[in-house]
């Protein structure tokens, strides 16, 4: 959102450590969730998210505000994730497992069914190509505009929209087919 004033930009570019700490607290969990969706490993997502913040701190002074600091962070993280996936696929075949965090609390049956459906959706999402699952995660979970998604992923805005449509259509088909990974 380059049109709106980004409250993080000025203090972070000044090197304000307290502001950086608050930014890590606020943007850290969604960034880890996004990376977890892309790389499909919580541990690797944590490492990559940390590395993304380190690179952000190093690159803040050169940042010219083409997008929000948050989008800039996600762009760094996305590039790190893609590099990670490329090197990981060179090393081994992807296992296809998606870690889940089931709640320990006992739930009523309806809630259990809903939770099962959510888990299934996440598994199916994890089967999509990286660009598609990235667009879906940024749009539905991080509530980014298509302009911001395009900035994060380094795509044209129209391409990001098309990825989103085809990702949703793929997911719907797989749900109807009842495919399980």
């Amino acid at each position, binding site marked *: 959102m380059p049109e709106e004033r980004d409250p993080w930009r000025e203090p972070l570019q000044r090197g304000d450590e307290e502001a*950086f*700490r608050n930014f*890590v607290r606020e943007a850290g969990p969604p960034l880890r*969730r996004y990376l977890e969706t892309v790389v499909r490993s919580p541990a690797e997502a944590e490492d990559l998210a940390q590395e993304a913040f380190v690179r*952000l701190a190093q690159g803040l002074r050169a940042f010219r505000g083409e997008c929000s600091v948050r989008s800039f962070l996600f762009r760094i993280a996305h590039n790190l994730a893609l590099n990670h996936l490329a090197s990981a696929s060179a090393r081994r075949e992807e296992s296809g497992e998606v870690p889940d965090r089931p709640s320990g609390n006992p739930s009523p049956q309806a809630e259990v069914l809903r939770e099962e459906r959510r888990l299934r*959706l996440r598994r199916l*999402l994890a089967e999509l190509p990286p660009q598609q699952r990235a667009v879906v995660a940024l749009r539905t979970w991080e509530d980014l505009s298509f302009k911001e998604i395009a900035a994060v992923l380094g795509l044209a805005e129209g391409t990001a929209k098309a990825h989103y449509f085809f990702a949703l259509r793929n997911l719907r088909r797989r749900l109807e087919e009842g495919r399980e990974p």
Partner: protein
Amino acid sequence: MSHEAWLTRALSGSGDEEAADHLARCTSCREEWEDLRRLEEELRGAAPCVPRDDLWAKRTVLRARPGLRPAGGEKARSRWGMLAALLLACAGLGTGLALLPPSPPSRSSEAGEVALLWDVDRDNGTLALLDGAESLAAEAEAWEDPLGEKGAGENGGGGSHG
């Protein structure tokens, strides 16, 4: 324009009146759009919960800290550090000197004190007591030894003769 293109536009956000018109006319597009909107809502609710991890956040800030420092800050910091170290060294040196015990008087100062009492009689080539020194000498003459050794000896000698 293809159905996919209309659906892409319709999913991209509100305010696209052309896409809305197409959905109103095309039943298959509208049905698919409604399905995809429901799925979109379902996906929003399926976001995995990532708990806040303060330890992770602290580690991240620690790792990122060197990058946050403003350019030239390191040099400026080292310059100020050197200046502070120099000032501390000077202060320490001054305190050390002030705490040293006073040195014993030198021979030349003792000679100076003696010279205060005597003056050279240039005519006779002898030493003469100064004015103030004469009164000091008179006091010393009249001084009685508190132990009475000098007085006791003189008195005892006179009594034996008388």
